[in-house]
């Protein structure tokens, strides 16, 4: 029994109940993606959580780079091979809406 057994995911693997998300869960979700969370990761995750709280939607990559003060290069290094979905999944949010 792990933390991941207690969450509700949709068919695409995104969490659907925001209240189920915790910081410990984020670490477990990240580990599943092969990522060990550092402060730089948390800066991005916290920004995404705050944005989603305000707007109701997961931010796009461009919103993350301009809003969280992280460069495109660093964002792709922190969350390699598909940061758009990985960041949203680890942050317990839905699929980002928007193209940029």
């Amino acid at each position, binding site marked *: 029994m792990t933390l991941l057994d207690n969450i509700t995911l949709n068919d695409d693997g995104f969490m659907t109940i925001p209240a189920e998300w915790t910081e410990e869960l984020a670490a477990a979700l990240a580990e599943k993606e092969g990522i060990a969370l550092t402060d730089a990761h948390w800066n991005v995750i916290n920004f995404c959580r705050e944005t989603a709280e305000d707007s109701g939607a997961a931010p796009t*990559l*461009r*919103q993350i*780079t301009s809003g969280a003060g992280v*460069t*495109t*290069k660093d964002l*792709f290094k922190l969350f390699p*091979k*598909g*940061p*758009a*979905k*990985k960041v949203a999944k680890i942050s317990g949010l839905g699929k980002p809406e*928007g*193209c*940029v």
Partner: protein
Amino acid sequence: MTEEKNRHIAFICSKGDLDMAYPALIMGWAALGDGIDVTIFFTFWGLDLVTEKRVDKLEIAPVANTSFKMSMMGLPTGNWGIPNIMGIIPGMSAFATWFMKMKMKALGVPPVREYIEMLSDAGANMYGCKMTVDMFDIKDEDFLPAIDSVVTASDFMDMTEGAQIVFI
């Protein structure tokens, strides 16, 4: 055990109009965000997107563009187009270009130069077409830094084996 090959999408950009610059940039960015490998080959007028002198001066012309309607400017004119005769008036392309740039900016879409840099930073591989580069006499120093190198059509075929190819 064989390792599963990552999905790979390749765009051939052959147009230098402002409106035709964006499809590959937007789809390429989306692909990179989803972990898909991206290759972009710039040929003919598409080279305008990656040359220092042209990238900030891309335009859209209302002449002979049947999709250009007055209603795009928020006027209640339905399907009424901008007559071609008006499109040839000096300044109309500049106006249409200004208008499109304003609309894109309002949506948070970056200018082409910045977009190319974003794609490069995100790991897209970008190449110039050798034949066009020779024909237009473009030098290495004319390119934006994002361009990896100038390659032949055959090189492009080699590097996109198994990829999905989109021609724009």
